[in-house]
């Protein structure tokens, strides 16, 4: 199966880049450093240009077209760069204050119902909604885990007696959840590895080198 020149070139560049990055697993080399620099540079320029374009489209163009209030976000945006000067760094705090204030206000407006009371109700009621005995038992274990995990964060009471056991078991539940976070991170890295391997095996070796249908 013939592959057109540009697809083959694209697959070849992918292949070289992947192998260059993987060469780091053997030991750091010029190839791994060059590929890292290429990716970092492209990402930086990409982000910079997109955000620059966004400022032009979302603020400068409307302002020029008569929506003069857009001058304020532009000024506050520019003020953030005052951080680069020791003398005028204080000016940036106005921009940060406004951003933080608006963000906090927006968050607090629905925080209590969304992330506090809603979750408390869910934590109390959900474990008992299982469809069968196994699900109810699982829910019960989780419910106990939630209660015991919270005891780990009790700092105003001396940890002794039964509370000591509760804290220790709660710590086990916390460690389990942290372990899951770590495992998810490994699985995510594996997804990247699988995709990179596909570029090497499917896109280049099978498709370009061997001309196999994929």
């Amino acid at each position, binding site marked *: 199966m013939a592959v057109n020149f540009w697809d083959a070139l694209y697959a070849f560049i992918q292949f070289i880049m992947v192998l260059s990055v993987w060469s780091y697993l053997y030991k750091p080399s010029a190839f791994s450093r060059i590929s890292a620099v290429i990716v970092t540079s492209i990402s930086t320029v990409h982000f910079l240009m997109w955000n620059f374009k*966004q400022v032009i489209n979302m603020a400068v163009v409307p302002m020029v077209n008569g929506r003069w209030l857009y001058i304020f976000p532009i000024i506050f945006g520019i003020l953030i760069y005052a951080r680069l000067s020791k003398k005028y760094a204080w000016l940036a705090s106005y921009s940060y204050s406004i*951003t933080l204030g608006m963000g906090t206000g*927006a968050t607090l407006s629905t925080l209590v119902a969304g992330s506090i009371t809603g979750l408390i109700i869910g934590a109390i009621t959900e474990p008992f909604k299982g469809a069968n005995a196994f699900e109810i038992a699982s829910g019960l274990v989780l419910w106990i885990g939630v209660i015991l995990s919270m005891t780990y964060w009790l700092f105003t009471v001396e940890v002794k007696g039964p509370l000591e056991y509760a804290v220790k078991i709660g710590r086990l539940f916390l460690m389990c959840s942290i372990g899951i976070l770590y495992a998810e991170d490994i699985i995510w890295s594996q997804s990247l590895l*699988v995709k990179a391997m596909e570029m090497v095996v499917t896109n280049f070796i099978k498709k370009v080198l061997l001309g196999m249908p994929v």
Partner: protein
Amino acid sequence: MAKEKVKERNIWQRIGLLDYRIIYTLVLILVAIPIWSPIGIPLRVGQNVKDYADALYALEPGSVVLCKFSGYATMLPDVEPIYMATWKILLSRPVKFLVLIQHPDSPSIIQYEFERLKPYIDEYGKEYGVDYMFFPYISMTEAAEISFTENIRDIFTEDLFGTPLDELPIMENIHSAHDFDLVISMSPEYDTRRYYVPYRIPLICWGTGTGLLPFVPPYYGYSVLGYCGGASQGGELELYSGFLGEGVKYNDAKNLAIIGLMVFIVVGNIAYFGEKLSKGGEK
């Protein structure tokens, strides 16, 4: 001198000090095998994935779905199977969907994905601007999103391609979050606050395994109807919906690599405890 030191090491130490390059090579081989020739390791579809798909299938004709799309290059390998399967389900249903782009990489990615979806778009007779549309990328802060939910046109006046919103037939009766029936979210906590609490719009969640799965369970059953995170669950979604794609293939490679890693973790632990026991518990 160095050779003498190596000779002094017992079996546990030698296992524990296995050259990491051997481990990397074996993992690479294990990943390469199923990519060369898929093995077909069986998949079990989880309840959360079934609920995710069922929420889409349960949408009434004419429903409006807001898809918060934040695809970027480094996360795509983990989440693209979910995106593709979800687009296919949405295209196969008599619903409208709006894609809210939230990352600078996403405009090019969404266009690339919909180019690949052309056969499905044609098969189901869907049309851009009538059945679905893409908002342009903006850096959406929470304050901006509040404004978006109250009046979409306060934030966007045109779509990704520069067409005024009022010229898109899909936008005719869509003005604010009140007009949405479902939100597909990457951030359950954030969107519970932005869409569920003020508007009672239910969510389903998509995302990477590491960015979504540890954080979504508290909201599952509260504001989140179902969720699907990571390429593995992407494979499950493909299987459940019948729209098979890369997710199923990736699962083989990931499962085999995980088996290899688990073997090395077990070997590493055996070496650690073996060495400890051989020293009689000495530190």
